[in-house]
């Protein structure tokens, strides 16, 4: 009985080994065929993502609210028409306090008609009642600790080595978790690709030595873009963060946003 069992075990083991050897090349071919499905063609071949660290900063004291940046972004990145914005401009109107009250400020009105992409015509509040008013351009905050990357269940969104937070369109499931997790409202679900989408820092431009479309178009130099790993002494980016008292949006959430703002106000969220 024992020798019978031993023989049976030996035969089974031998059979499994032969089967394994025979199927190996077939398995390899199958694996390659399946993985070719995912392999893509390249892009700028001479770009090394580990040699750059891009950053955009915003000077809200200079923004004139023309909205050319939001419009240019939509054109450059083929963003679907409708409530889908990779960058937008907000207008803050802080009114004077009611006569007789001991408040420093009245109501704050915030608006962003079509993301500001057609500019801001007219003003809902008469000039005499305005205490402070300004524009704030918004975009992905390039967080060092991005909650959107943290919550992606499959690894479709990621922080690239050069600082941009990107989305892999062919891998994204469209579950929407990252859109819920972003505190800044920078992401949206594209009705065209059914995946998440967001500002890519015009990755296809920065990898070719061009500036993002919004930075290129801004007539007021409110958007400052540069490479933290290749700063010249008179780089506008360096001048911005060396000469300004800067703030970030929602610092209490611990996302460590890298996009620096100058000229924010306590009312800006």
């Amino acid at each position, binding site marked *: 009985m024992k020798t019978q069992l031993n023989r049976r075990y030996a035969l089974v083991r031998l059979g499994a080994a032969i089967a394994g050897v025979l199927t190996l090349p077939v398995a390899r071919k199958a694996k390659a065929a399946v993985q070719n499905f995912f392999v893509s063609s390249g892009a*700028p071949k001479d770009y090394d993502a580990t040699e750059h660290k891009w950053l955009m900063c915003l000077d809200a004291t200079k923004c004139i609210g023309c909205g050319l940046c939001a419009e240019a972004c939509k*054109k450059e990145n083929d963003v679907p028409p409708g409530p889908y914005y990779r960058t937008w401009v907000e207008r803050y109107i802080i009114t004077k306090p009611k006569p007789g009250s001991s408040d420093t400020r009245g109501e704050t009105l915030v608006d962003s008609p079509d993301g500001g992409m057609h500019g801001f015509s007219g003003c809902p509040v008469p*000039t005499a009642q305005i205490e402070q008013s300004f524009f704030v351009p918004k975009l992905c905050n390039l967080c060092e600790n991005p909650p959107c990357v943290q919550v992606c269940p499959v690894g479709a969104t990621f922080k690239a080595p050069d600082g941009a937070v990107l989305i892999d369109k062919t891998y994204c499931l469209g579950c929407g978790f990252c859109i819920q997790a972003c505190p800044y409202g920078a992401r949206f679900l594209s009705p065209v690709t059914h995946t998440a989408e967001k500002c890519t820092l015009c990755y296809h431009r920065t990898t070719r030595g061009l500036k993002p479309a919004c930075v290129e178009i801004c007539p007021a130099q409110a958007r400052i873009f540069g490479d933290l790993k290749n700063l010249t002494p008179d780089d506008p980016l360096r001048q911005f963060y060396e000469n300004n008292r800067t703030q970030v949006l929602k610092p209490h959430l611990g996302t460590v946003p890298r996009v620096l703002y100058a000229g924010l106000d306590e009312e800006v969220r």
Partner: protein
Amino acid sequence: MRRFRLPPQILRLVLLTLAIVGSYLVARTLLTPQSFGQYGWYRGDALGEIASRTPVFAGAKACAECHTDVAQKLAHSEHKTVACEACHGANREHAFNHDVAPLKVPDSYCLRCHEANPSRPKWFKQIVVKEHYGVTCTDCHLPHQPTQTP
């Protein structure tokens, strides 16, 4: 001492479990993309794919390559920070193929930036259209040298 024999139902279950876990591991090696994990928990090829999109705006540097005289005038005027395509629109096709006509600038385009708005910074030059001579902008201003008259 009696040889330990696994009860038959447990043995079948163990084999079934091994089969399920085994097929999962095989599927995982087959279906995980090749470049996954190259730089982090994502497909490394995605960087190339995202960067391979064709740009739409040419950039002011591209315009200056041919339109050097205009670029010169602009560089010494108040509009030196304004990109060509901010007014002239995305003209990359024209930059690559000069037979393609550049986009025209609409007449009242200047008002996009210069119409008076209380939210604009106070130092920024703005006009209240009704109170501003009631003519076309270009009657008195040169777009590339805005403080000079034609």
